[in-house]
């Protein structure tokens, strides 16, 4: 059992990884500067928060709503700004984040909490499957983990198959690879849906999530009792880790697809990309939408992880934080995002003694990195480019021998 303080730090690191990856997709891979990414995090957090509390929707619907809100917001900001070259997006997203913050403060306090924040959002622990009956702990722990892994693997496989099928069908209908990552996004949602029940209130009894129902079907619940606190904690770590990996895989797949390569081509040279027949604006907008959708996901997870969300937490400082994570790790490197997010999230805990100089150090790190190592720690390299491990190398060699 990890103590609650470090537990929260680990959760925040994982959420920050998703958040950083989402900005890296926009800034690192597409070269578009979003300086108000915290605004999308706020939309995600409040979207899911309001959906699950005021509207009483289950968790996965809340997450879906967060993502949908973020995509809509991304279109509103991105449509005017991405058409123009230059740095308009930076200033517009910065302004947008500010608008979001002000609007959140102005919205009705009963639902949105106002300046004091939303406190009544259900924690992720409330959504874990709740079996009935009373039995021993160790079996229960093993069972929970094994069951989750097996169930998730089945789901993944199912989504893969369904995704391939849908892609085949829809490609004929619409052309392009657009549906592919919608399906991938669906997969992430399903993982969450797996585990999402609704929290019980005085009037409504708690409903187990899909996993809970499945357990009931197989009558496993008779052999189980309420999982111990420790096993529940590991389960949540497992869920978050899987979501991080899924997001990582989604982005990697997207970047290796045809539109993904187009996104990178736009970063390298927009005019050349136009001449390759890429609809630059539309692809930039799609990419921006995708990045913001992941930011929404991170926001939704954040809302269900920390006890209180406040508009002031989603200010400019948060945007600079995530910018620093991307820059430190390396713009255009997934590994870099992981490293950046982990180090910047843990740094405040280390720098606790520095006090008010912490922010000065932050900004100095940002400037010095830009001056002396503008690519960040990893540049555009991945871990597999640096350590050529045999099992990581194989794919690359195969590509090379094909060419």
């Amino acid at each position, binding site marked *: 059992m990890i103590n609650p303080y470090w537990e929260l730090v680990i959760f925040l690191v994982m959420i920050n990884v998703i958040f950083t990856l989402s900005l890296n997709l926009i800034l690192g891979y597409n*070269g578009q500067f979003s*300086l108000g990414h915290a605004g999308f995090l706020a939309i995600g957090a409040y979207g899911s928060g309001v959906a699950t509390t005021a509207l009483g929707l289950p968790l996965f619907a809340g997450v879906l709503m967060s993502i949908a809100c973020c995509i809509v917001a991304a279109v509103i900001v991105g449509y*005017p700004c991405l058409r*123009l070259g230059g*740095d308009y997006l930076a*200033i517009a997203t910065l302004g947008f984040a500010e608008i979001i913050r*002000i609007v959140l403060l102005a919205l009705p306090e009963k639902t949105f909490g106002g300046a004091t924040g939303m406190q009544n959002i259900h924690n992720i622990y409330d959504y874990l499957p709740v079996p009935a009956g009373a039995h021993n702990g160790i079996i229960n722990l093993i069972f929970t983990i094994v069951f989750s892994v097996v169930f998730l693997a089945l789901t993944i496989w199912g989504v893969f198959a369904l995704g391939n099928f849908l892609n085949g069908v829809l490609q004929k209908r619409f052309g392009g690879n657009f549906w592919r990552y919608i399906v991938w996004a669906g997969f992430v949602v399903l993982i969450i849906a797996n585990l999402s029940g609704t929290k019980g209130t005085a009037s409504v009894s708690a409903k187990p999530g899909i996993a809970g129902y499945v357990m009931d079907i197989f009558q496993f619940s008779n052999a189980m009792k309420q999982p111990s606190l420790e096993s529940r904690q590991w389960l949540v770590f497992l869920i978050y880790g899987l979501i991080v990996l899924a997001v990582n895989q989604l982005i990697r797949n997207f970047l290796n697809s045809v539109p993904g390569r187009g996104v990178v081509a736009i970063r390298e040279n927009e005019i050349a990309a136009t001449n390759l027949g890429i*609809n630059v604006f539309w692809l930039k907008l799609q990419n921006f939408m995708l990045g913001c959708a992941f930011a929404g996901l991170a926001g939704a997870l954040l809302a269900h992880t920390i006890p209180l969300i406040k508009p002031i937490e989603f200010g400019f400082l948060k945007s600079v934080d995530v910018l620093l994570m991307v820059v430190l790790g390396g713009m255009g490197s997934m590994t870099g995002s992981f490293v950046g997010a982990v180090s910047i999230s843990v740094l405040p805990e280390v720098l606790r003694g520095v006090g008010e100089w912490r*922010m000065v150090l932050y900004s100095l790190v940002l400037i010095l990195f*830009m001056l002396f190592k503008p690519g960040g720690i990893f540049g555009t390299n991945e871990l597999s480019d640096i350590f050529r491990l045999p099992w990581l190398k194989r794919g690359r060699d195969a590509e090379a021998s094909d060419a």
Partner: protein
Amino acid sequence: MDLYRYIEKAARFRWWFLVLVVLAPVVASAAGEGGSGFTLGSLVENLLIGLILGSVYALIALGYTLVYGVIKLINFAHGDIYMLGAFTGFYLLRFTVRWLNFTQGISLIWCFVISVVISAILCAALAVLMERLAYRPLRKSSRIAALITAVGVSFLLENGGIIAFGPNPKSYEPRKLEVYQLQFAGSEDFSNARQQEIFDRTQQNFQSSELSKTPYARVRVVSKAGSSEWSPTLILSMDEQFGLEEIPKDQIANDSPQQLASIGYSNDSKAGTTTVSWARAAVADYQVRPIFSNSEGEQLAFHLPIKNAAGDDIRVPWFNVVIVVVTAILLWALNILINRSMFGISMRALSFDMNAAKLMGVDTDKVIAQTFAIGGACAAVAGNIVGLYNQQIDPLMGILPGLKAFVAAVVGGIGSIPGAAVGGLIMGISEGLVKGAGAGKMADAMAFAILILVLLFKPTGIFGRTTREKV
């Protein structure tokens, strides 16, 4: 039907944005707490406030527009240079009021002018330094790197400002200026006494060992108008922790311009120091008056024959007129400079093609540094004006006005000085009106809504020219 085309077509239909433009002010005024709409008086009043804000935004926007025009960099740190301008101006004004106005009798307006000029020079130097250290090494790397560095520099200045000046707002409110003359002597007749002056209630520490030789002390208030009587003698005894001499009411000298009510000292035996301080001194007529005030200390103003909401004639301080006039003169002069002078031509040439400009013999580094200097100086002037206008400054004051000024530069057309002026006025007046309608919270959101609308309908801004990007 192709999905992409469909979405794109739907998005191209931009009528709803037009509706937004029309609705925004209505919504803003409806959102006001008990907003009863505008009367003519309140409209004029808010327009005037907007005009002041607009001048300030225009001055800040100038720096953005020049720098962006030359090296295509959104200098995020510009708003913080404005903040530093306000702070240097604040401290310089304190300094000049104390040393020039109070002791030399030079008029307050000159003190203000001197502090504005010096802070403009300091900020110009700072802007040049910033360019030299942070932006010049990145001239050849990607624009994103430069932009991130600009964010970093801005962050550094803000947090540095918090550490240097403290996180709390500083207030310009009129303060009592006091100079105390202290005498220490070994005997009660003060024949060859040691003299010491202390300003403004700042306390001073003395070594106990030093004072034990000269235990007799007395004090008076001095100024250019005359000095008060010496206070009754205070005997500093190092054994006591605290000593106070109350001056009886009847002993307070009525004819002297200042009145000393009591003096005191405290003794810290551990550190071996004595702190001499004064409890009460009535020096009412040495308050710093507002700049542009009459002899009674009231702000000079004139009245418009229009009634405001409270039913009085609208009062316009002359200081506000000065703000607008100074801004207009500065903008006009810079416009001439950019359009007519060789410097302006070099600058515009440089912004179009840096290497070709080098081939023409333009010292590009110097021109860029000069551009930063001009922007920094204008921001400092704006900072000084805002400090005096709001009577309050804080280390984070630069963020929002900086952003709004950039929006103003975009609205007016980036790279154009008349554009900066018009954009600034649009931002200022819209903010004034929205605040006047009672929706003060929404004023900041309004600025960015305007930005997004402008980017939709006329991305090059009002005075902007369409330029093709070179292949």
